[in-house]
């Protein structure tokens, strides 16, 4: 009974939603349209929030979006391509510093720094991806971990101090709303970040659905079979590393602008670990999950602290464990199971991850 629905699914090009065995074509179209409506509703809600929320909440949500974008970068590499990285804090830091140096040393307007940060990080990611080809699993994890640990030291390195500001860090001025719009700087930054987020999320979704995306995922699922089918695994793996670094680098650039300050020790491996946690909680291999991950990374530590300052770490750990127990495949996996049950299919063919 699975053959017809597979054909149908292939025709629709719906790679990500589960194809329920006995639900026909109309349900799939309905599911797709439903998803598009949901996205539209979310975007409209996002546009309206800063008007009603106070500056502080707007600032926090802007940070959530920044983290979501960084997690998306990690997701592209680890979730979609199966390369385990603990080093994304380094790319985030490189992006942040690129922006900080360009804005404070060379007075370049903030919007130009984003493509620059992206470009620099793409190059670094690509170059790092080349030797990484030889490493698998744990060993790749160590290599990326090494990058994460090395980054603060490099940023503090004395001879580079004239660029990086050394341990003192660099301060960035907050950009003003352009064209004299009647909104304040916080709201402007929120909309700016939102715009960048939407563009980049759409780009990632597009990439994942394309042939390149399928090649990337094929490499994750079965590298030998992928190579046997003629996919240039080396090229795709290094490209993915580059693109992943680009995404996290742009997030870092945005983050620097939002926080208005960069210092070497902010970009240590603990940040990498936060990204990893956000990735898993949101759902590995899920693009909308990255937003959930971002929300988790920003708000849950605050919640833990408000319960008890001394035992904040314990509460955070317990919350993490509870989430993993209830939703081992992350929020996206959980939502998928929920959705499939709602559509009342006998055997939801969800992804195994």
């Amino acid at each position, binding site marked *: 009974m699975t053959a017809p629905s597979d054909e149908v699914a292939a025709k629709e090009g719906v790679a990500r939603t589960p194809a329920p065995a006995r639900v026909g074509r109309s349900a799939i179209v309905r599911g797709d349209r439903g998803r598009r409506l949901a996205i539209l509703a979310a975007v409209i809600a996002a546009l309206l929030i800063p008007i009603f929320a106070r500056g502080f909440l707007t600032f926090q949500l802007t940070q959530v979006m920044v983290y979501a974008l960084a997690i998306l970068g990690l997701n592209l590499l*680890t979730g979609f391509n199966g390369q*385990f990285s603990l080093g994304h804090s380094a790319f985030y830091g490189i992006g942040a510093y690129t922006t900080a140096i360009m804005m404070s040393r060379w007075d370049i307007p903030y919007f130009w720094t984003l493509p620059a940060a992206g470009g620099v990080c793409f190059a670094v990611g690509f170059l790092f991806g080349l*030797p990484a080809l*030889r*490493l*698998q699993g*744990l*060993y790749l*994890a*160590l*290599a990326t*971990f*090494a990058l994460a*640990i*090395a980054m603060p*030291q*490099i940023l*503090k*390195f*004395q*001879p580079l101090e004239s660029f990086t500001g050394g341990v003192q860090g660099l301060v960035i001025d907050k950009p003003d709303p352009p064209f004299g719009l009647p909104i304040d700087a916080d709201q402007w930054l929120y909309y700016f970040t939102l715009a960048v987020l939407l563009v980049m999320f759409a780009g990632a979704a597009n990439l994942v659905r394309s042939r390149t995306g399928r090649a990337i995922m094929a490499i994750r699922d079965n590298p*030998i*079979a992928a190579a046997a089918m003629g996919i240039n695994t080396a090229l795709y793996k290094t490209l993915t590393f580059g693109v992943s670094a680009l995404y996290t680098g742009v997030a870092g650039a945005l983050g620097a602008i939002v926080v208005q300050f960069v210092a070497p020790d902010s970009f240590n491996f603990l940040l990498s*670990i936060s990204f*990893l*946690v956000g*990735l*898993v*909680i949101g759902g*590995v291999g899920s693009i909308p999950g990255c937003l959930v991950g971002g929300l988790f990374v920003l708000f849950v530590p605050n919640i833990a602290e408000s319960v008890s300052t*001394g*035992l*904040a*770490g*314990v509460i*955070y*750990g*317990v919350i*993490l*464990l509870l989430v*993993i*127990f209830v939703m*081992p*495949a*992350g929020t996206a996996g959980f939502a998928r199971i929920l959705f499939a049950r709602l559509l009342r299919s006998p055997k939801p063919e969800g992804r195994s*991850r």
Partner: protein
Amino acid sequence: MELLLQQVLAGLATGGIYACMALAVVMIYQAIDHLNFAQGEMAMFSTFIAWQLIQWGLPYWVAFAITVVVSFVAGILIDRVLFRPIQNAPILSQVVAFIALFSILNSSAGQIWDFTIKSFPTPFGHTSLFGSTLIDTHEAGMIGVTLGMLGLLYLFFRRTRLGLAMRAAAANPESARLVGIRVGWMTALGWGMAAAIGAVAGMLIAPVVFLEPNMMLGVLLYGFAGAVLGGMTSPGGAVAGGFAVGVIENVAGTFIPYFGRELKLTIALILIVAVLMVRPSGIFGRQAVTRV
């Protein structure tokens, strides 16, 4: 030349710490096929328990023994309670569970025993060895115990039926079940042993680095690096890797001009990654060959 020798010796002494930790890391890796981020914190917590027992008046070796047993049991409990329910979850989810454990242990240790550093006694004393001022009896004792544990583990895994059963369970759980091995209990046993080894490592390391909730963070990093350098499939390699990391870091820090002073950690890690380029499974590690 004299300085090089001194730094190498100092590096071996510090390397002893890393080797000890690397052994514990590899142990758990062999038992459960994952890297346990919380290994350091478990060791730290065990060491605090030992410290508390000593504060309450128990003699050192009694506290030592009790701590090892308690850690063993705790390791098994953690496996049964925390990881059994999620053993079929994706690897990354399990990694996050380890991170959660890390956070819980670190925070509760800080709350119970606070963050001021404490000195921890050593059964080996701190007198200098052979009149040299660079290695003292404790550091030599630590290296000795590490090598001793290594030897015992080797014998256990290679010469006993239980050890064989554990290796089988880790290598191929399905086949192991088919021949009647209780895979679940093998994993739990592996956890218990790793926790016990970690406790010993913690109690050896604490006299050198001072006991405090954050004492294991740096050590775990270096231990992990050493284990990977030596090869995650080889306990002996991991120990060697740990020593190597200690020496590399010291020598790089002292002798590489201009960069060495501030970037010694970076340089050590670059060297390790470079080694991995040449031998992707670590120096002594075995290449895992998978059937297509």
